[in-house]
């Protein structure tokens, strides 16, 4: 039995080697996707009651976590690169065991045109049983009572909110119709950053919250129609950051 499996692995390896060397132009040179959580123009600082959205001020954000998945790059020459096993838990807590950097070592060199990604875990992983790595249920992004991953969590507080402890909490999950809260976005890659091998994906919490009536919708933690609204708002927070061009360069 062990022998058979070894032979099987050997064949897989051989097939993989053959396929990788038989690829044409654009051999892997790698790309780094850096996620930057911000509130407006400034880096997001957790538990700092200094933010404002709509009529709420002294707003504090205590948690921002989401699954960044199925990363696909599209190139100007029509090629695409899809990251295999693409599941990344993004956690803005500096003490979390999670990285804000997604390395794509297999991405070919070339001029990028579009970045496509999803926020949320695909249905296959939601029904696959026990998984590890960023999909480990111990990472705090899994619902036990209603099997499935939480696609994104955003929590905070503002003194004007008439809720317990003036808090609001959005835990959006659910992978089945009619309440599938996974969202897929395609962003055009600006020409100035299309060839540098590095993309900065900003997640602007202000954009997420500006799209919601927080006072009326302060707590969404089950898959329902409200979760769909929150998921739509969440998908609006992403944009690709273009560093300012310095004169004389």
């Amino acid at each position: 039995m062990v022998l058979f499996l070894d032979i099987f692995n050997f064949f897989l390896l051989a097939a993989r080697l053959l396929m990788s060397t038989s690829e044409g132009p654009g051999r892997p040179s790698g790309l780094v996707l850096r996620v930057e959580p911000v509130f407006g123009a400034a880096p997001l600082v957790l538990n700092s009651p200094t933010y404002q959205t709509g009529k709420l001020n002294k707003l504090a954000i205590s948690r921002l976590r989401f699954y960044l998945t199925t990363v696909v790059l599209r190139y100007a020459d029509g090629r695409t690169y899809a990251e295999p096993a693409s599941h990344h838990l993004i956690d803005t807590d500096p003490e979390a065991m999670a990285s804000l950097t997604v390395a794509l070592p297999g991405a070919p060199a070339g001029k990028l045109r579009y970045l496509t990604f999803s926020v949320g875990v695909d249905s296959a992983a939601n029904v696959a049983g026990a998984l590890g790595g960023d999909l480990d249920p111990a990472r705090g992004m899994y619902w036990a009572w209603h099997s499935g991953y939480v696609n994104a969590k955003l929590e905070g507080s503002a003194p004007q909110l008439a809720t317990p402890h003036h808090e609001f909490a959005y835990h959006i999950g659910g992978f089945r119709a009619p309440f599938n809260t996974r969202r897929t976005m395609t962003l055009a890659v600006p020409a100035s950053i299309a060839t540098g091998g590095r993309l900065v994906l900003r997640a602007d919490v202000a954009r997420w919250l500006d799209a919601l009536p927080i006072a009326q919708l302060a707590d969404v933690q089950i898959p329902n129609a409200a979760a769909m609204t929150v998921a739509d708002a969440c998908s609006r927070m992403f944009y690709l950051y273009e560093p300012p061009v310095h004169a004389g360069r």
Partner: protein
Amino acid sequence: MPAAKQLLRWALLLSAWAGVCAYNLASESGAFVQPLGWPAPVYRFQDNPGTAAGRELGRRLFYEPALSRDSSISCASCHSPAMAFTHADHRVSHGMAGRLGTRNAPGLFNLAWATSFQWDGGVNHLEMQPLNPLTHPAEMDMALPPLLVRLNASGAYRGRFYRAFADSVVTTPRLLKALAQFTVSLESANSRYDKYVRHEPGGEFSDLELNGLRLFRANCASCHREPLFTNNGFANNGLLPDSIYNDQGRATITGRAADCYQFRVPTLRNIELTSPYMHDGRFQRLRDVLRHYTTGIHTGPTLAAELRKPLVLNGDEQKDVLAFLLTLTDRDFLTNSAYQYPPSE
């Protein structure tokens, strides 16, 4: 490129062959067996092929009080092997520090055929089911990260994980897969009824039992479908909604009003031992259950269609159905040494 494709094709063929070999080799003791005439299992064994070491680890974990926050209760506290893995004499079970839950602990067997778990069907995979009792404050009240720290600190467990997974590090997927290897191995398919169906010695039915089977097939089997004695569905079986919990069952998962007061259709195998009955354990005796179905149905908007027409069974007929239900007791299952409290190493 063609060469690579050829190679891939061979690799696929070989892996299929290896799979067949693995299946044939797996007929060691305790390994999963699909009983003759039963449907194919739902559980994907290819994602978690059982081994003797994996099942043994799963059994240790099942009987391990250190899985609860104060190390006071194990899975077996509410799922006792002698009672077909239910909690005798408990309508609802008490977890850590005596805290009471809201639902009756179900029996654990033939889980390879279950399409969902919990009374409301909220859990979609056997491997994810233990997360509920583990983390629920009224049950074991244990978060996963400290549990992993606790198990990794135990040399005995690191050794058992090494034997099961060729790696001594305790991780969430290994913990859950080991538990599933044990729970999916709990098979009950050798009751007197099974022997009757297979025309085996020991499967003789009395006239009462035969009449009970006939009545059962005519009145109960559309939901409690043979051979599993469940259709894996959910139904409102006419219980008066309980005033304490107002448990809405399936609707708490689907959010649909039409699913209100629907609960899992439980298997009836080993029902002699799984008292008390119903999702809230409201009935102590089987005759109370039959009385409910014949004269106690509460008509509500979501009542199962099968129960809208009154079920008429006279006293003798109810006794025959009871006699038949007792043939579903599987003594081999209840006394299987591979399922009991693990011997000391």
